[in-house]
């Protein structure tokens, strides 16, 4: 019970941080608390949260996916050249397939070859980014058709389309991770891979599927991103990787795997977006952003550790008293 209380406290601490940031920025800047800016924040959070869901799934299985930003760039750059030629469905499909393939390669090299997730995905990060540079040759592709642009920058009933897309994605992923056998297996793999394998779950399959989903999510976000920007370049998406790690950890999914989840990451992504948006509005140089993100990650590690230490202490004192009794 005691450890549950502390877990609840830490969980609500995130809401507290959210409220604190929100009210702080509202007081500091008159431009923050406008409908336009709030919708803007949510739309930005939509893109980040969808990447972060992928990162969360990887971290829940005890891994990580550093390639998401580059896979996003590669898939959207190649898709962009098809989109530009007017083939919208073909372009979207090509983008999704490339994302899926990159993710599957990650999954295969982690499970079948035995690379550490860090190295496998960091290698993919370089290869995918390099391929994107080679493919684009330093140029930009811009000016897509109105139909495609609706996906990322359209509005429906006064609310950006991105927000609906995020809502659908969140609901689907929450359902899959919390309500299906597959979802339970993801958590089981993350908390104890050997035990899960020995109890008859094909953990390799789970891990490959998770990284494939990550590739797919990266591609989806890449398509929405170029649709919102109305341009595709080889350099896009570099910040997504670090930001999504931060969103996941600040949301309360620990790096040790097997805990946390997509719903928590949503809060984390909103906190991260508030931070960057607030910093932009206050006119803080964008060069600070990675530093802030890095400190947020380290800070959440401290919180995680403190939570663990506290709950262990409580647990010890409880078990001692029960033994004495």
């Amino acid at each position, binding site marked *: 019970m005691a450890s549950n209380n502390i877990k609840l406290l830490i969980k609500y601490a995130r809401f507290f941080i959210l409220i604190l940031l929100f009210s702080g920025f509202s007081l500091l800047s008159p431009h923050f608390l406008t409908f336009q800016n709030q919708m803007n924040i949510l739309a930005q959070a939509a893109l980040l949260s969808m990447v972060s869901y992928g990162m969360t799934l990887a971290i829940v299985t005890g891994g990580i996916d550093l390639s998401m930003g580059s896979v996003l760039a590669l898939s959207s750059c190649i898709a962009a050249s098809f989109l530009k030629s007017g083939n919208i469905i073909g372009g979207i499909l090509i983008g999704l397939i490339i994302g899926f393939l990159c993710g599957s390669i990650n999954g295969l090299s982690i499970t079948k070859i035995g690379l550490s997730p860090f*190295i496998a995905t*960091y290698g*993919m990060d370089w290869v995918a980014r390099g391929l994107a*540079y080679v493919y684009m040759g330093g140029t930009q592709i811009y000016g897509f058709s109105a139909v495609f642009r609706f996906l990322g920058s359209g509005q429906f009933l006064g609310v950006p389309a991105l927000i609906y897309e995020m809502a659908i994605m969140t609901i689907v992923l929450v359902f899959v991770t919390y309500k299906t056998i597959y979802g339970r297996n993801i958590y089981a793999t993350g908390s104890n891979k050997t035990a899960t394998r020995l109890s008859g779950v094909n953990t390799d399959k789970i891990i490959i599927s998770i990284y494939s989903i990550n590739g797919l999510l990266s591609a989806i976000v890449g398509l929405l991103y170029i649709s919102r920007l109305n341009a595709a370049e080889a350099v896009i998406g570099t910040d997504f990787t670090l930001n999504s790690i931060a969103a996941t950890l600040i949301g309360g999914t620990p*790096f040790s795997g097997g805990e946390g989840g997509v719903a928590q990451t949503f809060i984390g992504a909103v906190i991260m977006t508030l931070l960057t948006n607030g910093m932009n509005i206050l006119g803080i140089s964008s060069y600070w952003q*990675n*530093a802030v*993100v890095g400190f947020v990650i380290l800070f959440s*590690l401290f919180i995680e550790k403190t939570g663990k230490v506290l709950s262990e202490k409580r647990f010890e004192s409880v078990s001692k008293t029960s033994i004495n009794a």
Partner: protein
Amino acid sequence: MVNLINSKNKFKKVPGILFGLLAVVCIFSITTPYFFTLNNFINILEQASILVIASFAMTLTILLGKIDMSIGSIMSLTGVVTGLMIHNGMPVWISVFLGVVAGALLGMFNGYLISYQGFDFWIVTFSSMGIIQSLALVITNGATVPGFGNDFRFLGDGSLFGLPVIVLIASGITILLVFLTLRTTFGSNVYSVGGSEQISKYAGINTEAIVFKTYILSGILAGIAGIVLASKVNSASPIAGSGYEFDAIAATLIGGTPFEGGRGGIVGTLIGALIIAILMNGLNLYGFTPPIQFTLIGFIIVLIIIIDVLNEKYKAKKWGK
């Protein structure tokens, strides 16, 4: 899974890599006329020197069974810090010294969080990579610190006794580190922590202190690499070092130090870094454009890492039987 520490084990993989080095040299010598010349070899050594120093920083942390992803960012930041101090009228040697101190402090930051706080080394060094990169951009406001005077340029561009100074620096550091890792208590403690942190602790080694000190050393080496890089290219870009961490990991693995730590060492890494420098030089001579070069090298490095891991797996199987 205790690793017995003897020098036989440490050098076990070196002959194989030397063979790889020879193979690469032969291929390039036959296929391009410009490769097998004295000038080009000195050129390769010059290009390799910075990677060699950066790779040593990486190797020390990998020997511990950990990693330092922030090496590239530390290089950028120390280069920029030194450059700015020189431009603000500080004497060159003091600026260089303070640049190295900055590297040591950044290593201390990583080392403290990893050893005394017990945080995951991947996530700590990956975050500090972002933080340090960001700091380098902030203090220069994103701009490159332009050219320096001759006295600073001597470090990276001068020559002494007919050899480039940069090569002499790298050689000096190599000798020092070989001595440190193979002939001192600290060195053998690094190997034993890499073999098993738990068992080293039971054996009475202050493992936290070893980890802490190794990260400081890694920061210092990355700092030196960053300063020499700034001196060599005659400017300090806030993103000059990004990507070096990846090449350094590759040089370490090619050189026979596996991710598990506790085996391999400095000499292997030296050869690994030379192989990478030769690959870069050769691809350049073939006339590939930079983006294609980077992609190809990325592919080659990933392949080498995969081969290394498969090799380890195969060996583990063989020992199992």
